[in-house]
């Protein structure tokens, strides 16, 4: 069954691939500097390498789909996103994969009655505009820098052509690598804790971990997308919006790579943090928005004439349409999956207000007097608790989300063998792993209980109120490892849930 579920992830990978060639090499192919075949080959190789070598590593792989807690739900969410992207790509319009996936996840959140985290949503929408404007600005500046350089260097047209060609290939490869590294989690991230593969011994030379195998399959689906459908979008980016020249095509690609590197590279972020320098905020950036933004930056630098506003309008509309379509499709498909095919699309978690959870809520510093109306009760939808407590007006939205998370029943059993079998153990430090081994076989009913057991060890220490980027970064790393543990150790036991629900 897992293999069937995996199909929708691969479909999403395919649509990512179909989108990618145009975004990375659209301008280069349209100006005939790089042939489509060459572009497809470079994109395929480097997306593959980026996904397999860098692909967020075994830890923190859950990516955006992480919050979707049932495999059936993940399948449906991926399917809804992939279908939406497919429809838009068929019209020859590039669309943001990440944001379409977010649209589909919001659909799942609504269906599962989860309380929406508006902060992340605003960040995502903000990055939408931010990426576009920033890429346009950088491309605009690069245009004038390139022009001044070319005028000063007096380089021969043929040599300029050759250098531009090499630069396009190198920067394109770098961009494809980053794309693979950043996006593979969208494609197969959700399947990491449930990967069906066994470690594969390659001719006695090295062992291919199950997670790596999963990434390889995901990357292959992206490559298939590049080859089968990539040509559809190549000319939209490089020719239809605005006629680019080879050098301006390079400016577009370089602008994309710079923004991607500055704002999405954890490596650079960590490097700046280690030097004690101010850092760029790490935000989720859409490659498609970077591309179109950079093309617009060049068009503006050239006086804003000859821009095909009709196509630009179509692209803008589709950027809103794709996530909305994914949201609706996700909601409808989840309904069909659950009620027609009788598949579990969300875990159906329970939320209980008993002495344990109330004690934890108190420990976190919240006033529990306002919880008297819910004390002793069990809920099966986050939204119900939220609505009930929200009307009382005692808590802020963020505080309510925090309280709900504490009450969530999420039975887990520490099983390090499970992590080893899937190759996930490599993401932990030696001392982290040792502290995990100490907890072997122990059972927990709430996520915060496992967290409390772990953070007492120095290796898992979280900074209470992080003062600087280094501490924030450390916390983010620990948090993503904890998320992986929750998901991996989850042991749904209906009887247990029922027993716990009545116990208070």
């Amino acid at each position: 069954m897992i293999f069937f579920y995996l199909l929708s992830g691969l479909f999403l990978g395919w649509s990512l691939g179909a989108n990618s060639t145009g975004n990375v090499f659209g301008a280069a192919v349209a100006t005939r500097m790089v042939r489509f075949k060459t572009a497809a080959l470079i994109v395929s190789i480097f997306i593959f390498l980026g996904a397999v070598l860098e692909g967020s590593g075994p830890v923190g792989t859950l990516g955006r789909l992480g919050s979707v807690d049932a495999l059936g739900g993940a399948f449906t969410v991926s399917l809804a996103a992939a279908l939406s992207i497919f429809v838009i790509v068929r019209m020859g319009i590039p669309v943001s994969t990440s944001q379409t996936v977010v649209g589909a996840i919001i659909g799942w959140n609504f269906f599962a009655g989860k309380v929406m985290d508006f902060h992340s949503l605003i960040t995502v929408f903000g990055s939408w505009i931010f990426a576009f404007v920033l890429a346009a600005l950088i491309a605009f500046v690069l245009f004038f820098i390139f022009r001044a350089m070319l005028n000063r260097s007096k380089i021969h047209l043929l040599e300029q052509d050759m250098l531009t060609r090499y630069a396009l290939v190198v920067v394109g490869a770098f961009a494809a690598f980053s794309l693979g590294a950043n996006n593979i989690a969208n494609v197969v991230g959700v399947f990491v804790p449930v990967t069906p593969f066994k470690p594969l011994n390659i001719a006695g030379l090295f062992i291919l971990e199950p997670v790596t195998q999963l990434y390889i399959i995901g990357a292959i689906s992206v490559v298939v997308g590049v080859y089968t459908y990539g040509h559809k979008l190549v000319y939209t980016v490089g020719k239809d919006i605005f006629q680019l020249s080879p050098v301006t095509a390079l400016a577009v690609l370089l602008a994309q790579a710079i923004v991607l590197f500055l704002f999405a590279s954890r490596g650079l972020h960590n490097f700046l943090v280690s030097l004690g320098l101010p850092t760029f905020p790490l935000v989720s950036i859409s490659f498609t928005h970077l591309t179109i933004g950079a093309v617009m930056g060049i068009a503006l630098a050239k006086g804003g004439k000859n821009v095909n506003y009709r196509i630009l309008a179509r692209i803008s509309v589709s950027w809103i349409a794709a996530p909305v379509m994914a949201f609706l499709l996700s909601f409808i498909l989840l309904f069909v999956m659950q009620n027609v095919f009788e598949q579990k699309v969300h875990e159906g978690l329970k939320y209980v207000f008993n002495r344990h959870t109330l004690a934890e809520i108190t420990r976190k510093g919240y006033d529990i007097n306002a919880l008297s109306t819910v004390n002793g009760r069990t809920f099966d939808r986050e939204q119900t608790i939220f609505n009930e407590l929200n009307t009382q007006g005692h808590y802020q939205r963020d505080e309510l989300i925090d309280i709900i998370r504490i009450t969530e029943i999420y039975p887990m059993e520490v099983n390090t063998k499970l992590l080893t079998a899937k190759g996930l153990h490599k993401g932990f430090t030696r001392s982290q792993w040792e502290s995990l081994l100490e907890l072997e076989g122990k059972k927990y009913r709430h996520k915060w209980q496992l967290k409390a057991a772990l953070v007492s060890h120095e290796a898992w220490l979280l900074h209470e109120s992080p003062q600087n980027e280094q501490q924030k970064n450390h916390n983010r790393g620990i948090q993503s490892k904890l998320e992986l543990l929750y998901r991996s150790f989850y042991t749904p036991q209906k009887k247990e849930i029922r027993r716990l629900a009545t116990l208070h």
Partner: protein
Amino acid sequence: MRPQQIIAKNGDKNMALLKTTRFVGAQIDNFLDLVSDSATLFQLGMEDYLLGRISQFEERLDQIREVENKADDLRITAERYLYEHTLIPENRGDVLAILENTDEVVDNIKDSLMNFSIEMPVIPEDLHDLWMQTTKASVAAVEHLVMAVRSFFRDIAAVNNYIHKVYFFEREADQLGEKLRRLIFAMDDDLSHKIQLRYCALHIERISDYAQNVCDRLAIYTIKRQL
């Protein structure tokens, strides 16, 4: 070694991009050198003819013939490489047009000198000075055309300066040519001789007209080439 032989020796498509780029760049530079040479040879040939050094004049004509053949070969090789190796895809059509039109200037120079060799017109001594001035104006137009084309490849900002010079010398050649024709028809001579001299004078003027035509296109291609 002739360019065709060079192509065969280098094994065409197996050439690395850097090698190909340098090779084609050198072909274009050599081609432009030959265009410039042909203009200088034309001026020297004209001087020889007016001073009655006919055997030396015939040698100049042979040299121009050779230059024209070489220029053709270089142009064809460069064009072939541009298309076979997809070099400068955005500009190769323009470069092709520039090279072909510049080559026509060389053809015209050869035709003009050959015309003198065949018809051997008798040019009265009174006309020698003006005849030479017209020739020099046309040759200057061609030489500035060569500089304009070189700048198109290396220094786009300078192209318009040279184009301006070409237009200047073309006008100069036109004015001098007109003066020359007026003098020819004011002479007390046979109409047939006057018509022959007019035809030869027009040939000299036409060289600068060809240079101007190339510049008309070059001006547009320069706008296209700007970033």
